[in-house]
């Protein structure tokens, strides 16, 4: 890339960023003005919310320092990732198995359709009875809810790996596990990553939901507690953190996807 095109790309990037951010800033400013003029306790000005986010989650002042961060955000994220990893492992394993064998797929398809249709929060009560009230039921529920998109997308991706790729792999002597690792997983990975992204947002939702009931900490716990104690600045702060978390986690996954699947964009051919 020459210097000129790099500069041009930088300019385009800057213009895009400004175009992206300007409406957001305008909306927040309008909200701020409205909140200050009307002064409803339900809709505090964003500046107050931002200050609470800064004090509670980022800066840390006095003995309350990083309190929300260490006591609520970290445990939340820990449970979410534990559940999400479990979903990735199970979803990919099941997806490859059922994707490879059409017969196996046909036997389990209705069961999987049913499992996907069960609203995970309905299971919360049962999981609390069965797995105790600590972290385990929360992690398992997050895994249960987020496994389906990974499972279905892996299944579709694996079943859709073209015969050409399979034959090419066979010529180079890959069979058995080696074939799965070097031909089938790479071939299915664009579809798998789409599933990873959908599942990540589900995991985030379930993280919040599982902390609404029988929880001692976490973002969901903070959210519900602040509503019950009429501390709406705190509620909006927790909501903002959840929203930013969603954006950041998705962005991270997009970067990972671009790195790992750089070959796919160049490839151009359908998987």
């Amino acid at each position, binding site marked *: 890339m020459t210097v000129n095109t790099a500069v041009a790309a930088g300019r385009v990037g800057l213009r895009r960023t400004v175009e992206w951010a300007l409406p957001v800033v305008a909306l927040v400013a309008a909200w701020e003005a409205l909140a200050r003029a009307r002064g409803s306790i339900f809709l505090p000005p964003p500046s107050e919310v931002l200050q609470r986010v800064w004090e509670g989650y980022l800066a840390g002042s006095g003995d309350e320092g990083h309190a929300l961060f260490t006591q609520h955000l970290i445990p939340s994220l820990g449970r979410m990732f534990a559940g999400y990893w479990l979903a990735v492992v199970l979803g990919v394993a099941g997806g490859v198995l059922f994707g490879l064998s059409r017969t196996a797929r046909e036997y389990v*398809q209705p*069961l999987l359709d049913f499992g996907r*249709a069960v609203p995970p929060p*309905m299971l919360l009560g049962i999981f609390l009875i069965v797995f105790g009230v600590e972290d385990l039921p929360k992690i398992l529920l997050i895994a249960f809810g987020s496994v389906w998109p990974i499972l279905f997308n892996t299944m579709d991706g694996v079943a859709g790996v073209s015969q050409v790729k399979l034959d090419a792999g066979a010529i180079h002597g890959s069979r058995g596990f080696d074939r799965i690792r070097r031909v089938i997983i790479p071939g299915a990975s664009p579809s798998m990553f789409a599933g990873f992204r959908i599942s990540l947002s589900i995991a985030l939702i379930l993280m*919040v*939901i599982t902390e609404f009931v029988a929880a001692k900490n976490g973002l969901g716990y903070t*959210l519900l507690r602040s509503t019950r104690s009429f501390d709406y600045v705190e509620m909006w702060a927790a*909501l903002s953190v*959840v929203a930013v978390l969603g*954006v950041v986690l998705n962005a991270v996954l997009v970067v990972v996807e671009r790195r790992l699947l750089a070959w796919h964009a160049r490839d151009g051919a359908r998987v």
Partner: protein
Amino acid sequence: MATTTADAGPGSRTAFVRGAIGIVAFVVALEVAVRGGVINTATLPYPVSVLGRSVTLLGEIAFLEAVWATVAAWFVGMTIAGLIGVGLGSLIGLFPRLERLLQGPIELLRPLPAVALAPLLLVLFSRGLLSRSLAVAFAAVWPILFNTIYGMRSVDPVATETARSFGEGRWAVLRRVSLPWTAPFAFTGVRVASAIAIIVTVSVEVLLPDGTGLGGFVVATGSGGGDLATIYAAMVVAGILGVLLDVGLRWIERTVFPWREGLAT
């Protein structure tokens, strides 16, 4: 992939029979595990009695009312999401500048978990159908919006230019070319959104202490003695309801937009 005539497609009879065998085998395996003591009955009641309970539940007025409340909240939420998604999506498709304007706010709003909004909606709109439906709409609007935008973008320019050259105005082109082309895309969005919406509906019912809908029914049963078989049975009904909605919408999709077959989903 080499296929024999016996397993020609996902809708074939073999697939149906195998699926049925899969369900029966699953239930029998669970029943054996519970009777054999592998799974504690405090964890899972006899699966056969759960299935029996889910049939008797369908004869109870309180339960049917709960199902109806869930379907109503789902329907109202989907209607709101459909109107906003298709309306806004068409506008964005027509005016690319609007997309640049809305891109930032949309990207920030989209990852907000609808269910996390439940406490907020409760505060703003108080308890009732509206709060629940708005949470549902918030979750369901995105697939409809993005599919509509995608559909509007994929309209063949030759088709719109042809209509223009026949002297059609902007709105006539939209009504007679762009929207009919976009409709199947938008409907796919509706189908995807519907699955999300039914899950969000029940979730919100579990979380808002309304006592309404299937979610409220489960919470009430759980706190009032905790009859596990009834909770599991309600869960089975909710799952079947979700599957039926999906099957129904797929059927409508195939019937109303037969030419859609083969397009990307």
